[in-house]
């Protein structure tokens, strides 16, 4: 899974640090996102997708193969659909 963050878009809302604290933190200056782990284990990928979904400013992009086809899919911030993020729906 590849994770990209855009600190220019980031507003420091902290949804990322709340949702996937092992992977994201916020700096103390403007509260902007910090990537703690550039190569997180697959077990974290759901939490990371959720963080990207929850980010209100679309500052987190994740790329990973789709489970079904193996095709890489780029998921950026609020373009992620809930169905791709939550196991429930």
């Amino acid at each position: 899974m590849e994770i990209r963050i855009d600190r220019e878009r980031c507003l420091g809302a902290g949804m990322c640090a709340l949702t996937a604290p092992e992977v994201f933190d916020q700096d103390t200056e403007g509260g902007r996102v910090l990537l703690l782990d550039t190569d997180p284990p697959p077990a974290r990928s759901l939490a990371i997708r959720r963080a990207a979904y929850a980010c209100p400013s679309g500052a987190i992009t994740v790329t990973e193969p789709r489970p079904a086809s193996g095709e890489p899919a780029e998921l950026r911030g609020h373009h992620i659909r809930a169905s791709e993020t939550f196991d429930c729906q």
Partner: protein
Amino acid sequence: MQHEPSTNSPEQAAQEAVVLPIQRPEGCPFDPPAELAELRERQPLTRLRYPDGHLGWLATGHSTVRAIAADTRFSSRYELMHYPFPGTEDLEIPPATVGDLTGMDQPEHTRYRRLLAGKFTVRRMRALTARVEQITAEHLDAMERQGPTVDLVRAFAHPVPALMICELLGVPEVRRADFMERAAAISAPESTLDEQIAALAGLGDFFRDLISDKRAHPTDDVLSDLTTSELTDEELAGIAGFLLAAGLDTTANMIGLGTFALLSHPEQAAALRADPGLADQAVEELLRYLTITPTGVRAALEDVEVDGQLIRIGESVTISIQAANRDPARFDDPDTLDIHRKATGHLAFGHGIHQCLGQQLARVEMRVALPALFTRFPTLRLAVPPEEVPLRTDMNIYGVHRLPVTWGEE
């Protein structure tokens, strides 16, 4: 796939338009107006007739509301908006006052938000947990001495967040009583409009005083921190007022109405009492289920296609956050309060650049206050029949004006 957005003739659009449903169902203080669910099912983005005659839009679906809130082609500037609420037809809506981030767009909004965001990070807010616990415990002690029948709003739900704002702004001990009294006067149901305006003006003076204190003798708080930024005194006073307005009635009503909801769903209260580890989830679920800021408004800065329909430049879009948070396409069995569910992804704090700045503080406050209250008073119950609890149906922020509770032997 490319396709043309559907555009109806003005006559057709006018014919289809609905007015914003605001009447909550009889007998249930927690449910949104029933018509919102019907609209959401029929068409999650529909034409809305505003009281001033404007023909705009109403979004009720979760993904639609989320998309609009995240899209900066929709403005949050008050002066561009038509309001969907009855009684606002002749209202001249002035632009946001200095420091009021809610009514600003980029880049003004971004400038303030960047200066503030670092003071409200998850980490910094969690560091306040011990203070919240202490303040919570003190108020529960006082309640116990005062009881066994108290108004929970006055004794607990209002003072806890108010004192946390004192902490953030660094209001010194000796001035807190004065501050709390002024803050209470603004939102008290018995205050007249004149009294509210006077209280607001008084608070302005209070903040200007406080800021000059902080410039001279900085302490360890957000306001002192901000005095070293480029912000002017006027901006700082505006921001202090904004933080108070944004952080007080909201959290106070989440605690007040949240307690009412838990008391009305005793099995949920019991689950929380049995396992305080459920607190995080319970807080998210209460935020979703209650959605105390039910409605937001945006204005299109250009033509924007949403859900295959064309919203034209200048048109107002009302986003029904309460309808979105009850969308069955997003949440299973959405009208049931279930603290075991994972309600993350709710829109109670909004979405997009205006998503609540203080949300991490609000979470800490609720996460501490609610379980502590229910653990301290295992027999907590309403002291009046539920239909006698006065509801804030007439306010931007929904909740309870008072919540008489009691405990001990029946």
